[in-house]
């Protein structure tokens, strides 16, 4: 028949074309963006009641670097930030890429080294009063903005008060509520109060530049973790004159002057941001001449660009990890290091059956976390048996109460009175509906079915609907999946901020007076070792009481071209190597 061969041929060609495309399998385009929890600042140095200048990040002497001959002609680092940043105003920045840009262009008071210790930044030292309520920071001499204007303590005072300005409604304002007068100012209804009243509230905030190079903070109560907060991306000097001049568009290059390692040279909206080295940076002019940040939405395109040599860094997704590890050349470019997020299964501890301690423990004991990382996480991440992740102060590797044990699980369930699992009330896992989470939930449900004989129903809901459900204990699902990414690496930002009974973050409704008491103490002691002791005890209670079952600690996994050198990464990086980006350079290639 004359029509037979064209049909066969076309079918074959179609299959070939589809197979070709399938081999370069994309992940479905997602508009999501990561929230900036990813900046765990280093914890205080043990015994740092007196600030002491530590790392030799002093005067503008260039650190001895690579020989001229080893340098590539074009010292440009090419990175991808995924999409147009919603804002790069340091006061308003709340997503990871926004914080990264703020950290490239501006210099916070303190900084972190790659071991997560808080080290001097723009401030060369700080002192704390004996009652722990007053912090005085001394700025370095010779700090300037990229346009030559000197940096003064008043610029920092302005930035902190701007963070708390109720009219701006900055998302990170609440992190500063430990400062005296901060909450009162920030929660004032600026529409109802007069200008004088607002100014009075602003003046009452405990941030003062006592002279051009001294900044004094007065806190409401002792908070040894406060120094970590002064190292975050909003604790930077801002120029009121430039902000007034630029108005809503002050973040354009003409008015976006900072004192950080790089200067924003060009912002082609929806296309890319171009940064150039700041010769006036207090740690010396960076070795890199430029950083170009493009905005490629789709992970597959990003990957193709990396393979094509158009990008120097690429964040590897779970789907790609196995392929990358098997590839002989790509595996050499793989860079993995611990992250700053922990994911967990939360239980609604105020409604049956999870109001029963033993039931929660039974469920916590019957999750094979290693298998989870291997099978669901595709090797990305590390099994979590406690909250604080590896690499951060407060991590307790020995705290592993709930290793996988179906026997223990069944025994606990029996102790709870549910030796016959069918007697349990119906249990539903509610989760944010997307293919990844669905796979995880199905896996979990299967685990509990096999280990405990419990039927768990799955209930996917739309993402925003899911977050809406979690707002109230009445609507909070019985079992839910959540994660926490720290803002700074102090254990306070983990245990107290998330699980203290006063916190609204954990959503489990679980309360424990001993746990709270330990935290209330630890949050205020000046001595880090004593604090860690108490936090460890508290974490022990948290794990034992199992209001949540910890699942996974996150990992950063990137492909980095071999010619990018001296990129020193840390768990809290918003951009890999951001703490020490002035040392990075490009080798000849």
């Amino acid at each position: 028949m004359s029509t037979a061969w064209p049909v066969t041929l076309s079918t074959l060609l179609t299959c070939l074309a589809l197979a070709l495309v399938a081999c370069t399998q994309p992940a479905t385009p997602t508009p999501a963006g990561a929230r900036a929890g990813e900046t765990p600042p280093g914890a205080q140095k043990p015994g740092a009641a007196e600030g002491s200048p530590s790392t030799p990040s002093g005067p503008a002497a260039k650190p001895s670097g690579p020989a001229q001959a080893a340098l590539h002609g074009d010292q440009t680092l090419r990175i991808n930030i995924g999409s147009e940043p919603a804002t790069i105003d340091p006061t308003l920045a709340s997503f990871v890429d926004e914080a990264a840009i703020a950290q490239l262009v501006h210099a916070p008071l303190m900084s972190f080294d790659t071991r997560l210790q808080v080290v001097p930044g723009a401030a060369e030292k700080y002192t704390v009063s004996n009652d722990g309520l007053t912090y005085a920071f001394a700025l370095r001499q010779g700090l300037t903005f990229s346009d030559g204007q000197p940096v003064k303590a008043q610029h920092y005072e302005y930035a902190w008060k701007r963070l708390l300005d109720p009219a701006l409604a900055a998302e990170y304002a609440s992190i500063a509520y430990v400062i005296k007068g901060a909450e009162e100012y920030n929660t004032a209804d600026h529409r109802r109060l007069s200008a004088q009243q607002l100014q009075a509230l602003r003046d009452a905030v405990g941030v003062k530049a006592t002279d051009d190079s001294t900044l004094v903070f007065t806190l409401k109560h002792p908070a040894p973790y406060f120094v970590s907060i002064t190292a975050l991306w909003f604790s930077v000097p801002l120029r009121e004159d430039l902000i007034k001049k630029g108005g809503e568009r002050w973040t354009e290059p003409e008015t976006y002057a900072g004192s950080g390692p790089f200067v924003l040279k060009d912002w082609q909206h929806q296309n890319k941001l171009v940064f150039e080295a700041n010769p006036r940076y207090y740690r010396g002019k960076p070795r890199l001449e430029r950083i170009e940040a493009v905005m490629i939405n789709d992970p597959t395109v990003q990957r193709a660009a990396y393979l094509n040599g158009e990008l120097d860094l690429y964040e590897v997704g779970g789907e790609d990890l196995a392929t990358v590890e098997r590839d002989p050349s790509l595996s050499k470019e793989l860079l993995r290091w611990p992250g700053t997020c922990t994911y967990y299964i939360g239980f609604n501890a105020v409604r049956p059956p999870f109001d029963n301690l033993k039931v929660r423990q039974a469920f916590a004991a019957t999750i094979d976390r290693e298998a989870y990382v291997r099978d669901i996480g595709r090797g990305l991440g590390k099994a979590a048996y406690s909250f604080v992740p590896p690499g951060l102060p407060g991590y307790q590797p020995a705290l592993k109460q709930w290793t996988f044990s179906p026997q223990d699980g069944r025994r606990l369930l029996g102790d709870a009175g549910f030796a016959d699992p069918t007697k349990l009330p119906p249990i539903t896992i509610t989760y944010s509906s997307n293919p990844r989470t669905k796979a995880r939930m199905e896996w979990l449900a299967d685990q509990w079915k096999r280990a405990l004989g419990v039927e768990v129903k799955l209930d996917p809901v739309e993402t925003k609907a899911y977050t809406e459900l979690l707002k109230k204990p009445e609507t909070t699902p019985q079992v839910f999946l959540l994660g926490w990414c720290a803002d700074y690496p102090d254990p306070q930002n983990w245990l107290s901020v998330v699980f203290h009974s006063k916190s609204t973050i954990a959503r489990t409704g679980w309360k424990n007076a001993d746990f709270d008491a330990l935290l209330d103490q630890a949050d205020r002691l000046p001595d880090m070792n004593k604090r860690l002791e108490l936090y460890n005890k508290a974490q022990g209670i948290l794990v034992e009481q199992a209001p949540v079952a910890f699942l996974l600690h996150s990992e950063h996994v990137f492909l980095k071209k071999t010619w990018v050198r001296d990129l020193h990464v840390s768990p809290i990086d918003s951009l890999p190597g951001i703490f020490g980006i002035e040392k990075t350079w490009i080798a000849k290639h």
Partner: protein
Amino acid sequence: MPWRDSIGLITFVLMHNTPGGPWDREKPLDPRVVENLNRKFGLDRPLHEQFVSYMWNALRLDLGPSYQYRGRSVTDIIAERLPMSIQLGVLALAVSLLLAVPLGMLAALRQNTWLDYTSLFFATIGVTVPSFVMAIFLIMVFGVWLSWLPVMATNWGDWRAWLLPTLTLALFPTAFIARLTRASMLEAIRQDYVRTARAKGLAERIVVTRHALRNALLPVVTVVGPATAGLITGSFFVETMFSFPGIGRLFVQAVSQRDYSVIMGTTLLYAALIAFANLVVDVAYGFVDPRIKAEG
């Protein structure tokens, strides 16, 4: 115009009845911060007040501030993104018409030849392959294998960055219009008046273009209106794959982020565009369909 208000009302009601709001993030914000944000954007006012105030401002083309993009007004954002989508849509439409109409015509005239089958084959591919699959396929071919174009082509001042997105977006309309043209052309050349024209001794070319084609194009014209509207309102997939700053992606993201003002603004805009596109089609009919001209 009452329809604009009813579309606005329906969208507003749907938006506010959907769970979740612009400040709901995976990592929860402090409730005091949320209160501040609601105050700043007037979201703590009663709903009817918000609606009336919004529509009143919209009349004066003040579509409010965006909740996602701090410091930018919705009018600004739309004014930045809409022309891009329009340009891409018009280009894609032009390409698809230029390719599809001749292709469909030829396929009809040379029915059941290899030309016909080949074009049918490609038309089927065009209709069935999803745009994001075709997008990545084109990027791999032209960017990685042939290296004719960079993989990351986001400099929209450079004409070469527009090549692949236009091709990808033109794929479905080309295929669809080609098949439509072919089908309607086949029907047209079987009409009596064509036989009459041939019998009168007219050249085949004139028979085809002056007589058959004009009538065959009627269904195509019908389709061009909605197709244009669809193309101009942007394709989320094409825009994401090419990181194209268009209004399709803006709209979808605004919905998932609950950026109320962008959602309202874009919906009203879409309604206006679609109404306009249909008007243009009606006018075009007057030129193409002699029956309408005679009556009107």
